């Protein structure tokens, strides 16, 4: 092989990926905080959402362990991302979520008992209440990543109608290996769409570690394949996460086009309650990850800033526990659907050809509520 003379090669494009962090794992503030984070009430608000989300999440796991809920996917350790998302989005934006984005859903008006109902296996859980921002939102997409290209259509509708709205398509690290993710990223800039792709990189896709998911050094750089900005953020730093999300949403809303955000976090729980991560994950990795817990971090930060006391903490713990219990009770109170419900939202009007099937179901013995 010949040596190439330098003049035969020229650089035609260059890219970089940046990472944003304001608060480190110990709670130390590393850089001047964004304006919203200079308001202690805002810090307390974010903290409260994270703690309540965790309490509800723990309740769901407890219900599953006692046979009162189906398989459940915990958001333990990832509360900062959902919280930042729920706060950063405007009411009439559209959230196309991944299944650990509970905090964002709660902030947008999904009652937590709906979440429980979803994992119990009841479609009404995805009806979402009228009059809340969640009414615009998509339900979880279990087929990983397949919802992401749908965001292209949603954002296209906003552009067509000249609405100042943004679609936020959220997914995990595993989802970024799929063609679905890529086809959305690759095309979003063709129409300069108001869409933000938010990756919660929690380092694992069930048992597959991030490093074996793709050869890419960062997931943010997958944006480059679509010619759009990609950036990393410390997803356990709720301030940084909210900051980059607000910046991306504002840019998209202002017509500056799509963006990819990789929020780096860690899945502190098993993949779901049906999984046992000890099978494939080293204990010390998990222990180490706990040191970066987003809740601990914000608490330490607030303590340093002098806006959070032991009494505040105790009061919040009690509140959160009460809320989680109330959610469980609300969930228990939901009456089962009638069997014919499996036909009644299938089409706008049930085709005649299906009438006999529906009738058959109505004469069958009534199902019992199971969890």
């Amino acid at each position, binding site marked *: 092989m010949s040596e190439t003379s330098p003049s035969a090669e020229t650089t035609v494009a260059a890219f970089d990926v940046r990472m944003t962090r304001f608060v480190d794992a110990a709670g130390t503030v590393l850089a001047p905080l964004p304006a919203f984070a200079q308001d202690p009430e805002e810090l307390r608000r974010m903290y409260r959402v994270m703690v309540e989300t965790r309490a509800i999440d723990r309740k769901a796991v407890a219900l599953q362990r006692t046979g009162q809920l189906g398989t459940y996917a915990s958001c333990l350790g990832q509360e900062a991302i959902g919280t930042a998302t729920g706060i950063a989005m405007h009411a009439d934006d559209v959230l196309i979520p991944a299944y650990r984005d509970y905090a964002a859903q709660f902030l947008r008006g999904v009652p937590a008992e709906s979440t429980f109902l979803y994992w119990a296996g009841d479609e009404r859980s995805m009806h979402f209440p009228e009059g809340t921002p969640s009414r615009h939102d998509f339900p979880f997409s279990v087929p990983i990543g397949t919802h992401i290209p*749908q965001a292209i*259509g949603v954002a296209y509708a906003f552009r067509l109608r000249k609405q100042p709205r943004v679609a936020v398509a959220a997914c995990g690290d595993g989802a970024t290996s799929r063609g679905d993710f890529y086809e959305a990223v690759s095309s979003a800039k063709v129409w300069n769409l108001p869409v933000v792709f938010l990756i919660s990189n929690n380092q694992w896709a069930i048992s597959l570690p991030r490093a074996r998911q793709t050869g890419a050094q960062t997931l943010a750089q997958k944006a480059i394949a679509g010619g759009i900005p990609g950036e990393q953020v410390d997803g356990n730093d709720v301030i940084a996460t909210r900051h980059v999300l607000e910046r991306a949403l504002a840019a998209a809303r202002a017509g500056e086009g799509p963006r990819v955000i990789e929020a780096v976090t860690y899945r502190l729980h098993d993949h779901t309650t049906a999984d046992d991560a000890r099978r494939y994950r080293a204990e010390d990795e998990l222990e180490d990850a706990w040191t970066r817990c987003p809740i601990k971090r914000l608490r330490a930060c607030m303590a340093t800033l002098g806006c959070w006391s032991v009494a505040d903490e105790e009061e919040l713990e009690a509140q959160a526990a009460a809320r989680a219990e109330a959610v469980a009770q609300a969930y228990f109170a939901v009456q089962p659907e009638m069997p014919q419900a499996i036909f009644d939202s299938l089409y706008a009007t049930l085709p005649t050809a299906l009438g006999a099937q529906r009738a058959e179901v109505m004469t069958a013995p009534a199902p019992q509520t199971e969890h």
Partner: protein
Amino acid sequence: MADLNIIEAVNLALKSEMARDENVLVLGEDIGRNGGVFRATVGLLDAYGPERVIDMPLAENLIAAMAIGLSTQGLRPVAEIQFSGFLYPCLDQIANHAARYRNRTRGRITCPLVIRAPNGGGIHAPEHHSESMETFFAHMPGLRVIAPSNPARAYGLLLAAIRDPDPVIFLEPTRCYRLFKQAVEDSGEALPLDTAFVEREGTHLTLVSWGAMMHETRLAADALAQEGVSCELIDVASLKPLDMDTILASVTKTGRCVIVQEAPRAYGPASEIAANLAEHGLLSLFAPVLRVSGYDTVMPLARLEKVYLPDVRRIVAEVRKLLELAPVG
């Protein structure tokens, strides 16, 4: 009232519905300036602009997903998939999302979208351009699947499909796109979905088909009429939901049924019709229910595609076989 072929009728329906409802938009590969590889979308770009006539990157999965996203926002996307074999990458989005959003959100999110594609072979096209895709969609709960066989039905059923509040797969008969013309009025009147059309009445046997094979079946009925065999001719038109009432009424009368499909035989659409006859029409049947179909082979390339495709000769032969088993009168 103009004489139109099927592709012109499709084009007219699109034009007409885009004019009537500003929420209707079309998307697909090469559908803008190029007017679509079969010219179904000719003139739409000039009439309605690039925002409503969207040339798509080369990704059918994205086309389906984008159509879903658009439809959830109350738009009425009509997506074109260029050739039948390229529908496979859409199946995931259609089965797992389009066909389900209404049900899984108990009516909150809906997908009033249409996916149009040419279906079937017979035009000496390259590989993967000639597949018959009905079964894949007709087996998916929550969908409608339409397969028009002539210009008037293409027009009227496409209007109905676009206006329908649920996702519709609209499979057009590739080889008949330009095969014959018919007077089609731009009346804006949709034809009913869920309805089979009795195209010709007859007494000796019922011939059932849809899409491109309707044409061969019609010719076979003509040939058989010459021999004194009176065929009732049914165009299924809507494969899902399937209008078995019309087919059963006919078979109750004739006692004999031959179903003609272009798709491979095994687990094809004709089997569903035959199964329904075996269940609900058994007592009326004088003779076995025969299926004339493509073979259970990969769709051959151009040189041998005629070997695969059912044609008048094969339909007539099956009917004669049937009449030998159960002679008329």
